[in-house]
């Protein structure tokens, strides 16, 4: 620890940090703009000026920038020094010479870092009496609004977009006071993390376009801590609403998972909650040929009574996108033997393989933060940018580990961003990517290996056997692949934190096995290896922890016997299995009960359609691919007939049990049942706070203390002030009443601190910049490698990729925008979704005389489609890549063989 003196007081602080981050972690406010913990210090804005004194006798001191000043033993500084204060105010004055008087009409107002800093420095009166410089704005797409006049040239946007996230199309142009941040021409920002610009920008230059469509001031929002439901990483978010409509999603800091950022799918996918395809009213279809209509209450209850009478057999199909509690509730309603996972046999098998490996192999699975620290990585089969975007972002940071080490050896502190990057040049920690076609991570890869799944599995296997002779070696030897395998094995063996990334979205078991073999082999050498598997959905892992059968078994059951009562939880079965099989299931079911948020092909077949609350209207737990159980909390009070799925189940169980008391009235009750019955979740119950948790006798308010309009909001409907909505399920309150203090990290609904209205208020919620939330990062890992481990290796089947005439091997191509069900219903995201396409090899295209964009006829098992081709140079001959689940596409079980014809 290093001892320093700030304004006369002594502090023991961590060495090697810069003065600004040190002061922020001590709770001392130093105004700043260009410093960001994830981006380091650059010393551009000059706002963080403090006085530094040579020694005790030095009374003048000199102004230094605290973000660029390393903490040294015995350092004497002053933040409150009069000259330093005047200097900081003068910096704001300088920025204000060109800043427009936009506050009343600027989306950032009330949440604006510039406003906060202006107040903090005390600058107020304008002396500048000349014209301001102005800029033309650009249309940057459906996510981000651009208003350049407000820019204070902190350079954070291009540092995040370009340096951190690898984006190419946002840049800085011009010079002197005409510096411009934008694209070379109007157009949608291409990078998948562009949404973070709205949080990184300290002014209103980059703002959330989706929020502006239903704009609400930050202080008027009602918020809740939430978890993203669009992929298996489970980034933490903050959901905010007003007038009963979800207004926006922003990132919630989790030092172990997503850090400061989230991807665009997570940020802008929320609009599905407000979509007019939302199911808000109960619908009943009285006979199979009738229409779904809204029933009267007594009629509805009597129908339910018939359908759920005591002895009826219920088949329950759960969902990997529904919460653990909802799935569990369904398994209780249907009975464990009748509970199905709602995913294909293959998917279930692969998910279980992953779970089994993580539980028994002794290999640890990393958090996202640990992925960033890895110094040698191999990716097998997964197109991370599209299936798990934040892992791709983490890898972009991981490649800096080697040059960072060298910088530290040369005495350059890692927070001093520009020199660290300059010294690094092109040196990177090795990342090897083995996938069938190109992706945007290729540019950071040491080597990319483009091949069929069989060859990718072979490569993985060769790497494993190169590490440990016990691994069974495949007979086929291809020299180039052997060399590459040895090179990769060597990198992994020499690394301190090697990482294997694979997943189940490619659908190939052998690739998964091969990657697991690599991890086991490294573990056998006593190396601290980590293994990360990408799963398809936000609760794939959670569902896997609940016993259940695969969907295929339900489909085969329907072939044999008629199903009395079928209950489907938040799952569009037409996305899981071939149309024919699902049609048959529905035909063979007497009564079909569906709970979901949005109208889809499955809900159209419902005899009873129950409106399920989304994540925004429910408490629930999701388990991410790391095995981290995280809870989301309700931000919306459910209206109309919308109810949480687990609550629906509770009522249905009550009806089934002859209207004896309701099993679970409150969320804690179902959480307790769950933990008691499934020991895998016991840790969760102990960790998550109960609904009766209070801070100093008060609930934790979802609303800031400046929340306005509470009594006027619904006065046009009812002049009497309505009672505050109750929340029996969590310690949060639907009001601003309560302690405006920092709650436990899992319950943080918004960021605010005295003087900090912007997202930067988050500094006060962390133990230190880039550290953990105070009290620990939210979420609890349910799976840790046991002490005993199984040193067995998978046998990889020898496969050769055979060319067949007129046939291609079709592999899945996931798209960050479009392949995931819920986010695809968000209006802004629909503008980013491409038309369905088929990647084909250039030589194959030339052989068929197909031009780029031409449609062809493709015949796959169970389906014939017309599809547009896209010539993709990186894909192998004889292989083609089919976009997955884009709107308009049927379910196709990939990978598969497909016959093609010219039209």
């Amino acid at each position: 620890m290093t001892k320093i003196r700030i304004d006369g007081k002594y502090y023991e602080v961590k060495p090697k940090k810069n003065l600004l981050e040190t002061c922020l972690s001590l709770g001392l406010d130093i105004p700043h703009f260009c410093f960001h913990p994830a981006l380091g210090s650059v010393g551009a804005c000059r706002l963080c000026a403090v006085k530094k004194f040579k020694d005790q006798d030095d009374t003048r001191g000199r102004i230094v920038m605290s973000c660029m000043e390393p903490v040294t033993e015995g350092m004497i500084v002053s933040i409150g020094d009069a000259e330093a204060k005047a200097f900081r105010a003068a910096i704001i004055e300088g920025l204000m010479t060109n800043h427009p008087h936009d506050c009343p009409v600027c989306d950032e107002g009330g949440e604006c870092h510039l406003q906060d800093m202006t107040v903090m420095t005390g600058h107020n009166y304008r002396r500048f009496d000349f014209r301001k410089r102005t800029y033309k704005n650009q249309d940057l797409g459906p996510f981000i609004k651009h208003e350049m006049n407000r820019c204070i040239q902190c350079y954070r946007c291009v540092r995040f977009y370009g340096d951190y996230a690898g984006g190419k199309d946002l840049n800085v142009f011009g010079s002197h006071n005409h510096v411009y941040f934008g694209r070379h021409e109007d157009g949608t920002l291409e990078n998948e993390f562009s949404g973070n610009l709205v949080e990184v920008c300290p002014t209103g230059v980059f703002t959330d376009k989706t929020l502006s469509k239903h704009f609400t001031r930050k202080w008027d929002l009602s918020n809740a801590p939430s978890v993203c439901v669009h992929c298996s990483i489970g980034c933490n978010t903050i959901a905010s609403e007003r007038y009963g409509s979800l207004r926006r999603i922003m990132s919630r800091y989790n030092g172990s998972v997503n850090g400061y950022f989230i991807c665009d799918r997570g940020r802008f996918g929320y609009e599905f909650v407000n979509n007019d395809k939302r199911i808000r009213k109960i619908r009943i279809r009285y006979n199979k040929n009738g229409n779904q209509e809204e029933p009267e209450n007594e009629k509805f209850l009597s129908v339910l009574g018939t359908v759920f009478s005591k002895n009826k057999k219920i088949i329950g199909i759960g969902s990997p996108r529904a919460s653990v509690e909802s799935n569990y509730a369904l398994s209780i309603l249907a009975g464990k033997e009748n509970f199905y996972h709602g995913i294909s046999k293959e998917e279930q098998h692969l998910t279980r393989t992953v779970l089994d490996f993580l539980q028994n192999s002794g290999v640890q699975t990393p958090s996202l933060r640990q992925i960033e620290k890895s110094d040698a990585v191999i990716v097998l089969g997964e197109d991370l940018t599209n299936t798990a975007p934040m892992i791709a972002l983490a890898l972009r940071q991981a490649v800096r580990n080697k040059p960072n080490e060298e910088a530290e050896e040369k005495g350059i502190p890692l927070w001093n961003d520009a020199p660290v990057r300059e010294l690094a040049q092109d040196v990177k920690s090795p990342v090897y990517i083995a996938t069938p076609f190109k992706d945007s991570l290729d540019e950071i890869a040491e080597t990319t290996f483009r091949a069929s799944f069989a060859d990718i599995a072979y490569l993985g296997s060769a790497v494993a056997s190169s590490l440990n002779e016990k691994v069974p070696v495949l007979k086929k030897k291809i020299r180039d692949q052997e060399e590459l395998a040895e090179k990769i094995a060597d990198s992994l063996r020499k690394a301190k934190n090697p990482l294997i990334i694979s997943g189940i979205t490619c659908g190939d078991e052998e690739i998964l096995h091969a990657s697991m073999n690599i991890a086991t082999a490294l573990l056998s050498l006593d190396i601290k290896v980590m293994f990360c598997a990408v799963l398809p959905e936000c609760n794939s892992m959670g569902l896997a922890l609940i016993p259940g059968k695969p969907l295929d078994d339900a489909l085969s059951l329907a072939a044999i016997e008629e199903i009395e009562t079928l209950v489907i939880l938040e799952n569009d079965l037409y996305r899981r299995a071939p149309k024919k099989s699902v049609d048959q299931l529905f035909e063979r079911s007497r009564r079909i009960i569906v709970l979901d948020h949005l109208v889809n092909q499955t809900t159209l077949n419902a005899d009873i359609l129950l409106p399920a609350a989304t994540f925004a209207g429910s408490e629930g737990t999701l388990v991410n691919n790391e095995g981290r159980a995280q809870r989301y909390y309700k931000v919306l009070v459910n209206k109309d007939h919308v109810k949480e799925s687990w609550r629906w189940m509770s009522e249905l169980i009550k009806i089934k049990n002859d209207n004896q008391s309701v099993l679970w009235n409150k969320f804690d009750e179902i959480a307790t049942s769950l933990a008691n019955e499934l020991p895998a979740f016991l840790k969760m119950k102990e960790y998550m706070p109960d609904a009766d948790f209070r801070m100093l006798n008060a609930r934790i308010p979802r609303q800031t203390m400046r929340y306005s309009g509470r009594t006027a909001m619904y006065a046009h409907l009812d002049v009497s002030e309505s009672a505050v909505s109750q929340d029996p399920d969590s310690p949060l309150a639907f009001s601003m009443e309560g302690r405006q203090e920092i709650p436990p990290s899992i319950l943080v609904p918004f960021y605010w601190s005295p003087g900090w209205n912007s997202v930067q208020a988050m500094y006060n919620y962390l133990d230190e910049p880039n550290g953990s939330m105070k009290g620990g990062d939210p979420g609890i890992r349910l799976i840790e490698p046991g002490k005993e481990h199984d040193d067995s290796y998978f046998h990889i089947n020898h496969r050769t990729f055979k060319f067949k005439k007129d046939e291609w091997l079709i592999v899945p191509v996931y798209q960050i925008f479009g392949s995931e069900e819920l986010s695809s219903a968000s209006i802004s995201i629909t503008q980013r979704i491409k038309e369905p396409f088929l990647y084909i090899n250039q030589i194959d295209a030339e052989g068929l005389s197909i031009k780029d964009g031409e449609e062809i006829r493709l015949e796959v098992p169970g389906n014939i489609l017309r599809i547009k081709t896209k010539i993709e140079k990186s894909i192998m001959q004889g292989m083609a890549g089919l976009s997955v689940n884009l709107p308009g596409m049927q379910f196709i079980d990939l990978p598969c063989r497909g016959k093609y014809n010219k039209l």
Partner: protein
Amino acid sequence: MERPLTKHIIPGSSPLSLKEYIKAGGYGSTHKAMKEMTPAEVTNLVKASNLLGRGGAGFPTGVKWSLVPMDDTNPKPKYLVCNADEMEPGTFKDRYLLEGNPHQLIAGMIISAYAIQAQKAYIFLRWAYKKAEAELRRAIGEAYEAGYLGNNILGSGFDLDIYVHSSAGRYICGEETALLNSLEGKRAVPRTKPPFPSASGLFGRPTVVNNVETLSWISHIVENGAGWFRGLSLTGTGGTKLYGVSGRVKKPGIWELPLGITMRELLEEHAGGMEDGLRFRGVLPGGVSTDFLTEKHLDVKLDFSTVAAVGSRMGTGTVIILDDKTCPVAFIHNIERFFALESCGWCTPCREGLPWVEKMLASIEEGTGKIEYLDILKFQSKYMGPGNTFCAHAPGAAEPLQSGLNYFYDDFVRHIDDKKCPWR
């Protein structure tokens, strides 16, 4: 009087070819350095000579070279960069040397590169110096042909390539770290120091950046020794200096004179004094980014420390004269307009402060200025002080402003009171 740097330069004539230069004694020092001296010995010699950098900062050249790591563990190559981006307004000395005797520079660069064991050297040349570019390229071609550049120079085992790089054209590229960024193809924004270019410079490698005039000395110092060099000056600092005078004097021009002559001598004996009918009012001793000196300073010796002692900087040694028929406000406004436009836009005080300063000066000059502006101008010149900004650009801009406000305050007030420029 010895004029080592300029004795072979005849304005208007072509510079000496390689053969002619060798006949006149040039490149002999190259043989001497590479055959008889170790790199460390060359560095120590330059250190002993006390050669101060001629780019404006006056940093001891030998000390700069000694900071370069010389062990073999560092990745290659190391770089030597000649800062030929002469864009300081009022400065034209490097142009004189580049167009007049490019081989002198090249010979110096070869020895300097040898001293720091740099394998690649760049001459970062001002875009507008087209004639110099042509001369340099020709000279470099001759040097390659004669074996003074390329692989295994003079059989020493030392390889060196020199490239001429024409700048894309901004003043800030003259700042050594902005120059390095520009050379790498990035935006010409300065870098933070530490780390210094000697540790992490061009492409992250150890790099030395030296001025044209500085590098032109090296072969002479190797040829004649440190003592000889020190003896050339009047003040003991060492060497001669190219002094220039611009402004309304009878004979504006450039002269190589012993370091340490007085301002009066330069102006009256060499520049011929003021034009008839004009009186001397003030002078910027080292280009526009230096503080004004006035009549009472005319006996100051033009050396780094002596000029600093009277509150200015010698800088590049090219002086700009302010006469009494030129409006000082306009003079300063013109300068600040240049600085405002040449700001790179990285840090706040420079980017926002300079345009504001320019607008206020414009307003005062045309007679619409307010008396409050004077306090704001004084404040801005302090606010843009060294350490407050990211590089020396704005502090440089502040120097003529704050000294001008100091010495010509009454002229500013007259503009404001009379609501017009009294000189028009």
